[in-house]
């Protein structure tokens, strides 16, 4: 088994846990597209839950960081996010400026800590 492909088992899991649960909603949209009101109450709730789940994922990466990110102290990760967010707001919601600023704060802080 090559390093590129890795474990076949993991690819089957990708299909079951990733591809199918994700694609099913696109195909349902294709099939039943006509009859749904975009502003319906159910979709408002769904959108709120989906946003909150995504927020949870963001929090998870920052609070319980994977791999190399774990080498950065917690306070520095939180400061980087806070600084990035401040710049994001000041620049009238520029995603790019916010990301660059957050990165600079974290990298500079980590470099300075050694």
């Amino acid at each position, binding site marked *: 088994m090559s390093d590129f*492909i*890795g474990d076949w088992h*993991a*690819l089957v*899991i*990708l299909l079951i*846990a*990733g*591809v*199918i*649960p*994700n*694609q*099913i*909603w*696109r195909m349902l*949209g*294709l*099939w039943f*597209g006509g009859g*749904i009101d*975009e502003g319906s109450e159910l*979709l*408002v*709730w*769904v*959108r*709120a*839950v*989906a*946003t*909150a*789940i*995504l*927020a*949870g*994922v*963001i*929090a*998870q*990466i920052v*609070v319980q960081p*994977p*791999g*190399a*990110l774990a080498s*950065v102290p917690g306070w520095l990760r939180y400061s*980087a*996010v806070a600084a*990035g*967010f401040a710049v994001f707001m000041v620049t009238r*919601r520029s*995603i*790019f400026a*916010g*990301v660059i600023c*957050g*990165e600079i704060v*974290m990298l500079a802080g*980590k470099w300075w800590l050694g």
Partner: protein
Amino acid sequence: MRSVGSTVLTLVLFATYLGIGALAHDTHFSLAWALASTALVWAGPAQIILISTLGSGATILQAAIAVTVSAIRLFPMVVSVLPMMRTPRTKRRHLILVAHLTAVTLWVECFRFLPHVPRERRIAFIHGLGGGLVAVCLMATTIGYGLAANLSQLLAAGILMLTPLAFLFSTARNCRELADVVALVLGLALFPLATMLNSGVDILVSGVAAGTIAYGVHRWRARA
């Protein structure tokens, strides 16, 4: 292809997929796995949820539930995009690839570009735009994966940090109503609380709780 290059969002998408490649590497998935997930799932949040839940030891069922809940938002996107390119002669099978390519970036760009494209050419236009975005993201996944494997710890940490930053700001930018803001803020705040429950589905617990509260705020505002 020019439209692919001309979108600022492509840069953000590139950064996101650099992060996904790096995340896949650091949670011990193979490069082929990461590329297959980019091509077949084609939804950044779902991929990150999948990688981080499986990487932190969740079962297949728990990961599948978290992914499918995050993917529900694709349903209204597909529903709202498809009418823009339907003609009387369009068959449903002509739209399968368009439905697959539909994700946040493409959805936003559809509203920007499609009014300038003649209706009968829109499906081809979206195939081109979406295909270009997938190609860019496959490259980014590969580069991110390779960088995480070879870079110093400092820079590898920087690439992993791209994901939460890019997602936080693009989600914040998409907030239109108070309910969206409440869902985002509470979703961030409740996650650390939910981890104390040690349920194994912390993201689902905090997500459903925060989302439902946000919906409650929306209802309460609608009544007031």
